[in-house]
C-alpha cells in the first residue's frame, strides 16, 4: 500500500496496517523537513507530485522489494503541498520475520523512491530566493 497525501501523514494509522503475528521485526523510515540543506537555512518546503505516475511507480518499487527481500509487507506514504520544518515528507514501514530483510527492504524502498518517483521539491530559504532541488545532491541537476 502506498499513498500520496495532501494532509499530514498519520504514522499511527499506517503502522496499524503492519500488524501481523508472524512479524518479529518492524523497521520504519520517516523523512522529515529539516532546517538546513547544503549550507542554506531552509524555512519551508513545497512538494509537487505527479500523482498518477507516482502511485504506480511506488507500487512497482514495493513489489520489487517484496521479491528481493524476505519480508511480509510494506506500507508507505508521500506528502505533497506545503510543509513546515519537522513535518513528515515521506514514511516507509516494513515488517518481516527477521530484522535483516526488514532493514534492507526499507532502505531499498526509500532509495528507489527518492530516485524514481515523480516528486519535486521547492526549498524556501530564510535569506534567498526559493529553488527547485533534486535528490542528486551536488550533481548540479538544477534547471535554473
Amino acid at each position, binding site marked *: 500500500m502506498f499513498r500520496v497525501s495532501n494532509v499530514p501523514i498519520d504514522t499511527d494509522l499506517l503502522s496499524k496496517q503492519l500488524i501481523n503475528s508472524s512479524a518479529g521485526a518492524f523497521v520504519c523510515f520517516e*523523512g522529515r523537513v529539516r532546517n538546513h540543506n547544503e549550507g542554506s537555512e531552509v524555512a519551508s518546503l513545497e*512538494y*509537487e507530485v*505527479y500523482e*498518477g*505516475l507516482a502511485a*504506480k*511507480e511506488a507500487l512497482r518499487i514495493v513489489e520489487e522489494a517484496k521479491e528481493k527481500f524476505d519480508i511480509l509487507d510494506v506500507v508507505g506514504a*508521500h506528502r505533497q503541498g506545503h510543509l513546515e520544518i519537522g513535518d513528515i*515528507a*515521506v514514511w516507509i514501514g516494513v515488517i518481516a520475520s527477521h530484522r535483516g530483510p526488514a532493514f534492507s527492504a526499507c532502505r531499498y524502498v*526509500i532509495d528507489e*523512491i*527518492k*530516485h*524514481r*518517483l*515523480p*516528486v*519535486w*521539491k*521547492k526549498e524556501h530559504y530564510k535569506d534567498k530566493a526559493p529553488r*527547485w*532541488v*533534486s*535528490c*542528486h545532491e551536488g550533481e548540479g*541537476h538544477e*534547471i*535554473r
Partner: protein
Amino acid sequence: MKKLKELNVHYYAVLREMTGKSEEDIESFAATPGELYKDLAGKYGFPLNSRGIRVSINEEFQGMDATLCSGDCVVFITPVAGG
C-alpha cells in the same frame, strides 16, 4: 509524411513555472517525445539539453524515442527530489 497529433501535455515544478500552466492541449507533428521536447524548449525556453529529463506517456515511463499517438498524455519529468 508526418501526421498532426493532438497531445495533452502536463507540466510540473520548474516546467510548470516556466510555461505558466499545469497543462495544455497541443497540435504537433512531433513523432517522438524527444521531438516534442525540442519544440517546447524553443517555445518556453526549457534547457536545450534534455539529458536527465525523462518522459511519461499515459502514466508510464517511456523512452525519448517512443512513438507519440494522438490523444497521448505526455509529461516531461525533470530530475526529481523525493522525500
